[in-house]
């Protein structure tokens, strides 16, 4: 046995003491790591939502508000369908200040073979679309063909599988990257495929409330405006009639989300600080109490020839090792909670949630571990100082 090996031996030979300190440190790591991952996931989700929305304005029929909140489709993946004449698209496109405008058609499937719950089908026009094509382009080089769909990351269907929507077989040509928004629960197809699906839905007596040709409708118009024109155009579009429309300014959606995210992040930050303060106080108290119990042991080591510095090193190395083990356990527990239950966390928060990639996750693990490995010995400093500076002569005279 050498002085260098003694800290590890002390840890292993006192499992009760080690376990209780490890649990305290694990809580530190768990709170810091989990809180950081959740906040980063929310921030990634917001960025992803901004990228995926892609437009400055979204125009939907005014009646859709009563049926379903369109914002929920983007944030939570709630299914919905509502229609207006495609002539509205031409009207908007012709307005001054519009850079691009493209229509999308929504259809909520009753029960797709792929899913246990209704999914949103979104049809887009490849010729004019500027929001969905770039996303699909990350996964497939060519455009979607007829009766082909691109599935969101949370749709339970693999590439080259066939799913049935209103009885129509649709080939899954691509699976899209996760966006952390409600858009992950939708499947995407061209307008040509959507017209087939709308006809099939109508044949199956699904009440679509479409007058006339299903190919002549849109559910939403995505509008990109010249810089600074969004507010004016939104007002102008709102004033148009037949049909009456609602204009969603995506900046409003994202700033609402940003505001909620700010609130959640603030709450999480306060919780992390509270847990850390409480835990550090407990950890310091625990090290001090243990230090009291170990006075005699340290006095014996001093009498054998260990210096104050050696004893401080011994106490701090034990604390560092315990912090390392506790930190690893806390982070592992955090991963066990965060990885399988990210869907539940997203549902509970009601905000876009996109878990960071593995390089960022590993960096967060390392940073959390480094923080607790500094906090543990920090909490043990007072105890180490007291133990190393204790009057050994007096302790030895106590005899027991």
């Amino acid at each position, binding site marked *: 046995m050498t002085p260098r090996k003694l800290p590890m031996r002390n840890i292993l*030979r006192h499992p009760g003491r080690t376990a209780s300190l490890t649990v305290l440190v694990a809580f530190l790591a768990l709170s810091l790591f989990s809180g950081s991952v959740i906040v980063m996931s929310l921030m990634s989700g917001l960025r992803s939502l901004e990228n995926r929305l892609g437009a400055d304005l979204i125009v939907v029929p005014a009646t859709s508000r009563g049926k379903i909140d369109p914002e929920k489709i983007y944030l939570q993946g709630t299914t919905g369908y509502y229609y207006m004449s495609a002539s509205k698209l031409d009207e908007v496109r012709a307005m001054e200040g519009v850079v691009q405008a493209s229509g999308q058609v929504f259809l909520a499937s009753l029960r797709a073979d792929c899913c246990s719950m209704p999914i949103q089908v979104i049809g887009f026009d490849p010729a004019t679309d500027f929001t969905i094509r770039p996303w699909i382009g990350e996964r497939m080089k060519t455009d979607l063909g007829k009766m082909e769909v691109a599935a969101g990351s949370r749709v339970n269907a693999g590439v080259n599988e066939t799913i049935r929507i209103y009885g129509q077989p649709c080939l899954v040509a691509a699976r899209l990257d996760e966006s952390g928004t409600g858009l992950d629960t939708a499947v995407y197809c061209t307008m040509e495929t959507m017209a087939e699906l709308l006809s099939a839905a109508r044949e199956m007596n699904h009440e679509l409330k479409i007058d006339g040709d299903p190919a002549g409708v849109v559910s939403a118009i995505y509008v990109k405006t010249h810089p600074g024109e969004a507010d004016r155009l939104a007002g102008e579009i709102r004033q148009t009639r037949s049909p009456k429309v609602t204009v969603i300014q995506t900046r409003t959606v994202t700033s609402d989300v940003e505001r909620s995210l700010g609130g959640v992040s603030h709450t999480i930050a306060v919780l992390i600080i509270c847990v850390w303060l409480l835990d550090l106080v407990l950890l310091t108290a625990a090290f001090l109490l243990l230090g009291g119990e170990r006075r005699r042991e340290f006095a*014996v080591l001093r*009498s*054998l*020839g*260990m*210096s104050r*510095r050696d004893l401080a090193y011994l106490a701090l190395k034990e604390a560092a090792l315990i912090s390392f083990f506790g930190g690893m356990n806390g982070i592992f527990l955090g991963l066990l909670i965060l990885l399988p239950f990210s869907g539940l966390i997203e549902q509970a928060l009601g905000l876009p949630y996109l878990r960071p990639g593995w390089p960022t996750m590993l960096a967060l693990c390392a940073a959390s571990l480094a923080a607790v490995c500094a906090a543990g010995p920090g909490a043990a400093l007072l105890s180490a100082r007291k133990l190393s500076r204790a*009057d050994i002569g007096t302790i030895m005279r106590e005899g027991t």
Partner: protein
Amino acid sequence: MELAACGLAKRFRRNTGDANFLEAVHPVDLTMHSGEMMVLTGRSGSGKTTLLTMLAGLLPPSDGTAALDGKDLYSLSDAGLSRMRARHFAVIPQGASAVTSMTVMENILFPASLAGKDPPVRQAETLMERLGILKLRNVWPGELSGGELRRMSIVRALAAGPDFVFADEPTADLDDGNTALTLGILKETALEGSAVFVVTHDREAAAYADVLLRMDAGKLYKI
């Protein structure tokens, strides 16, 4: 080698009614020489252990010096004094003194590793054999009786062949047979060249002493 105490005294802060301190050890002049066994007796609370711990470099005195070959122990830095203790001194303290996370043999060999010496395995085994604890070499201290722990700390102090041995009640937990054996081993250690300082209540110890001392109310008397 010699360890010389000059005017070595210790006062403790304590409200005793008539004073704010207790004069635990009045100024002491004493020299320990290699090859000599000193035995210090006296009543409980007379200051024996305080004197021993000051001589062993464990308790800074209130006054005076304790010098090893002319170098005052308490003028050294903590690291310097610790190094000196590890290389030259060995202490057999009162009561429990085992490091509980080491086995008996690891406890015994640990001081040598602190002093940067080779582990004195053979010497340790010989002493353990003589004191009847060889079979306990791989046992944890928590499994030992008081007498076995005491014998372990005696072997730990003597195995590496220290220049100075400070033994505080080394026979306290031992039966008559082991008491005689221990005192005999301490005497042999002195004859082999170490300076041995024994604090004891044991009357038998006087027979082994080259110098016999008595302490009374903090004052040291040579008998």
